[in-house]
């Protein structure tokens, strides 16, 4: 019974991981090409990693911290606002409810070729009036990301709220609980797995963005990992793949570590017995 699960799990893991072995090889290869050769690990050097941490030109540790700060704040904000909205959509009946939901999906489908120009103009206007939300501000960038918080996440979380029987909050309300108490004390703990999943997604999406982040934060000390790394390879001639690969690997660590920590929340409701079923 167990073996066949491994027969699926092992190949799936190989498919998931083997391309990344190339990244690891590239980060250790002195000539620093991404896929220039298939004899992996023929030569090994730590020079690209050393470059990452010693090069004043690329304040990599700074970028790393910036990405974490922006990622965590965005994730927390997105989850909170998304959960609030999902609660409203799931538990209340109000005018514009269904069209509101449809609207959230629609706005996601809008082809945003020009978003970066529009966002730039908006934030440069903010800079004149209210600098903390304008260009060059980390908070400003987080707010831009939070502007997208309602879309996917609300829709996703609403589905989970819907799967929790309404009788639960109705009986609590009969016991005199307010809507806020129902939300914070009863529902949120129950949908914990999806809260964790959504915050992870939002964190990853933030870590990966280089277009808007590169637009808003121009000071090298403020920049994020994705922006910094993209600089290394965006120029067609003379790309620094080795340093890029090393940076991308280290940049992926927070997500992986975070996931290990959050796993048990995702698996919260499960007991060991179910595995054997």
């Amino acid at each position, binding site marked *: 019974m167990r073996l066949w699960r491994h027969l699926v799990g092992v190949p799936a893991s190989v498919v998931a991981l083997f391309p990344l072995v190339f990244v690891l090889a590239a980060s250790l290869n002195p000539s620093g*090409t991404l896929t220039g050769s298939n004899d992996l690990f023929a030569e090994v050097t730590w020079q690209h990693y050393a470059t990452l941490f010693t090069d004043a030109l690329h304040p990599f540790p700074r970028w790393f911290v910036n990405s974490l700060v922006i990622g965590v704040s965005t994730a927390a904000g997105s989850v909170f606002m998304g959960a609030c909205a999902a609660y409203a959509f799931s538990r209340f009946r109000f005018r514009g409810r269904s069209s509101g939901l449809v609207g959230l999906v629609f706005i996601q489908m809008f082809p945003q070729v020009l978003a970066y120009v529009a966002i730039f103009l908006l934030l440069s206007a903010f800079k004149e009036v209210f600098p903390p939300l304008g260009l060059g501000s980390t908070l400003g960038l987080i707010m831009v990301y939070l502007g997208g918080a309602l879309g996917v996440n609300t829709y996703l979380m609403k589905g989970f709220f819907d799967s929790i029987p309404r009788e639960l909050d109705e009986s609590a309300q009969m016991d005199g609980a307010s809507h806020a108490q129902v939300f914070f004390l009863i529902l949120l703990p129950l949908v914990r797995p999806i809260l964790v999943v959504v915050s992870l997604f939002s964190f990853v999406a933030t870590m990966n963005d280089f277009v808007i982040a590169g637009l808003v934060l121009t000071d090298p000390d403020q920049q994020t990992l994705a*922006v910094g790394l993209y600089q290394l390879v965006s120029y067609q*001639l003379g790309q620094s793949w080795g340093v890029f690969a090393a940076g991308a690997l280290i940049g992926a660590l927070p997500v992986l570590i975070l996931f290990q920590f959050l796993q048990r929340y995702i698996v919260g409701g499960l007991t060991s017995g179910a595995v054997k079923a």
Partner: protein
Amino acid sequence: MRKLTALAATTLLLAGCAAGKTAAPPPATLTVWADDSRAATLQRIAATFEKDRGVQVKIVQKAMGNLRDDFVSQAPSGQGPDVIVGPHDWLGKLVQNGVVAPLDLSAKAALFSKAAMAAMTYDGQTYGLPYAIESVAVLRNTKLVPTAPATFDELVARGKSLVKAGKSTYPVGLPVDPKAGSPFHLYALQTSFGSQVFGPGGELEIDNPGGLKFAAYLKRLAADKAVSTSLTGDIATNAFVKGETPFLVTGPWDAPALAKTGVPFAVDPVPPAGKEKARPFAGVQGFFVSAKSANPILANDFLVNYLATPQAQKALHAAGGRPPAMTSVREELAGDPVLAGFAEAAAEGVPTPNVPQMDAVWADWGLSQLAIITGQGDPAELTRKAAERIRAKIGS
């Protein structure tokens, strides 16, 4: 009502706190956008400027891929940088959009080569301060091929015989972008057949008789496996480092990294394939001042008095490997064989066209090369079709 008054009181209190702090006027800040390959050097040069003038310089590292377009879209708002660094072929687009200011180098202009100053000129106005001239050349592994081949045919033949002898894997490392072709790297070969991108009168020439001969030649190179759409820049470079190919067609930007790998190489100009001279594209790297800069005098001061100096030009060369545009610096560094090779290649070069429509030209031109290399039709026909499309787009 109690709620409202409480709220109003708190609000006013908080608003009062916010209004309470008034900011002192910040010192003048000069913002420079530069890519990765020169940001650090500029930072060092700027440090002296900051000390001398009591101002701040902010060097912003931008990805090369979107530096120009971000500048064009941000400069009009007044929020863009004061100075940018880039190749001269951006100039047409920058002038067309009115985002670059004319620059008066006065006496300093004489310090630079004529070609460099000409590249920084558009419609009779000088717009930039040059610092480097770059062209592709052939890097030759001197252990595998001790002497420079005189023609490209000979180069391919030597490469093929090395492959046959089992001493290398690919005859030539000629990078091709599988999405965009390689008009930049192949241009020297094309000109050796007497085909320029724009003729003397500005008319498109890629499908003139020479251009069609070049197209046929390109097909032959592909058949010889001397070019292939799967040999991308990083594969070719890696192969050269490992001695798997005796030749690599590339520019000076790769040289500092290659020198560190210890592979023994010499730099020769791209040899001709046709009967005429092989003339690669020459790109002039330079500094440009924004038309909407709030610091025009500081920007001018920084460019003319701090960047147009032998020390600065030398430092920029040391960081990026590009041959300096300042004549005296180039002469001073003449002993460096790698630099001399690239400088020789650039001396024969034709400036990359700086017309605003170049983006459209590159795209169709490169795609026709890809189609020829992958054998998707008659080379002459593909070239003519691409030329027609380009003419339709640029209206010439």
